[in-house]
């Protein structure tokens, strides 16, 4: 298979072989397909887009067409997964905090990734140019974007504290999904994409 998108590669490195994974907003099923082949992982994807449903089925990924904003209680009992993953989807949810709690209701650990709104280029565009940020990580105009709940690393970590969520691992990368020394010094300023692994405290 083709090389895995590198943020997905980071996620898959965090997932123990043989575990059960639920992928929220699983897209075309790339991650689950990879985890199934390479990590002997068993899991399901949740997805709302009809074309992605078809793509998942073509890959043999078990996918449930459903709206994440409606929550997970329709389908999943408490503690039914080892990991619940949500890749670049949190910022498009109506109720991100409710969904984070739901993730840790049905899963032992949660993994989320999101574009960092605190990146210096986003800050500069707002502060200096005076318009909503546009970048490779945030390509949509403000009036036509699925991203209704953007946040910074700081915001996300504050929410975790409020929800009594313990962050186990964090990775902050640039748009090429690489990390470097500078990013590790000033992640909220220099990181474009944030990845977190966490559990209930």
């Amino acid at each position: 298979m083709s090389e895995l998108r590198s943020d997905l590669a980071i996620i898959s490195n965090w997932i123990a072989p043989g575990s059960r994974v639920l992928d929220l907003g699983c897209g075309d099923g790339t991650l689950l397909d990879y985890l199934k082949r390479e990590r002997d992982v068993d899991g399901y994807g949740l997805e709302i887009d009809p074309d992605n449903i078809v793509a998942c089925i073509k890959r043999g990924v078990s996918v449930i067409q459903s709206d994440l904003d409606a929550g997970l209680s329709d389908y999943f009992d408490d503690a039914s997964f080892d990991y619940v993953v949500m890749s670049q989807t949190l910022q498009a949810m109506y109720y991100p905090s409710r969904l984070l709690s739901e993730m840790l209701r049905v899963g032992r650990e949660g993994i989320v990734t999101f574009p960092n709104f605190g990146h210096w280029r986003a800050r500069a565009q707002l502060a200096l140019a005076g318009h909503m940020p546009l970048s490779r990580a945030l390509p949509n105009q403000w009036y036509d974007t699925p991203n209704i709940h953007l946040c910074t690393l700081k915001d996300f970590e504050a929410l975790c504290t409020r929800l009594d969520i313990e962050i186990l691992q964090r990775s902050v990368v640039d748009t090429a999904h690489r990390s470097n020394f500078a990013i590790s010094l000033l992640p909220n300023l220099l990181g474009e994409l944030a990845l977190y692994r966490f559990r209930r405290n």
Partner: protein
Amino acid sequence: MPESIPVDSVGLVTPQTHHFDQPLTLDCGRVLAQYDLIYETYGELNAAADNAILICHALSGDHHAAGYHSMDERKPGWWDSAIGPGKPIDTNRFFVVSLNNLGGCKGSTGPNTINPDTGKLWGPDFPIVTVRDWVESQARLANILGITQWAAVIGGSLGGMQVLQWAIDYPERLRHAVVIAAAPNLTAQNIAFNEVVRQALRSDPGFHEGRYAEHGVVPAHGLKIARMLGHITYLSDDAMRKKFGRELREGKISFGFDVEFQVESYLRYQGESFVDRFDANTYLLMTKALDYFDPAAAHGGDLSAALAHVQARFLVVSFTSDWRFAPERSREIVKALLDGDKPVSYAEVEAHHGHDAFLIPIPHYFDVFHSYMALIAQEVSP
């Protein structure tokens, strides 16, 4: 009538009938000492006999699912859109079996066939059959055809209920279960509609307690009303509005009780054409099979427990505007399968056609269906 057979059609087909001598004990306790099942097949069974697909029909369906019986036939089988070369159920890859269920009126043993014990038509004396009885009879047909395991059992509506029952009763005999526009049981509202259907049939002066054939009549009025009611519930409010609106047949109202609105004309036509092609006693039996279906009942209402031992992989499909077998009901099936960590995919197709959508080649629906079937095709021997 087809001018010529379309290239993606299974072509001309001839039904076959198998006579079964082994008695079948039914859920109701009665025994059918012998019976016939009429069926059609499309495509070729491969040497490994692992490419067989069973089609389960819905309330008014039958064995004629695809192709044409003759060049004079006006329309192909009821699921011709899905079965044929290159179609979702690709007859270049699969061997497809479609039968008329017991109690039907299209050639399998049912109320309009002769009871060998009396030499007379069964009529209302035909026992009430259940979805489980059907599955049992279908399993016997599979034995006759040399099929120990279906690549998939597929059905919509009441057909989907048979698929569920198959997965429960014979977990090792099917690899895939495709359940379309179905439900784990009927809601009170659905049973209520069925009761109105039964009352319409049984209160027709021509019904004669089900012995209408002996009187040389048909309860045409009852059949017509039953079908009209059915049709209203198979469509959505939206679909009817789009199809008919308030359009008048003559362009103006005439202050009378003849057909005025197009929708009335449509319903009357549907009702009348049903009279010629369906049997009232069969209709009654089918509504009962629907009402009684409830595999969770044996497990204290726990559907997850009922599905705990299924081995098939599932594809479940529902349609947003289907209010007789609403998406919520399909989600119950999905949830129960997830409870048991069963492999399942679920598509909730945006469609305005109501319950009838399962017979319509809606692009997203058929993309999902086709993709899933293509995966199954990859698993079967060449």
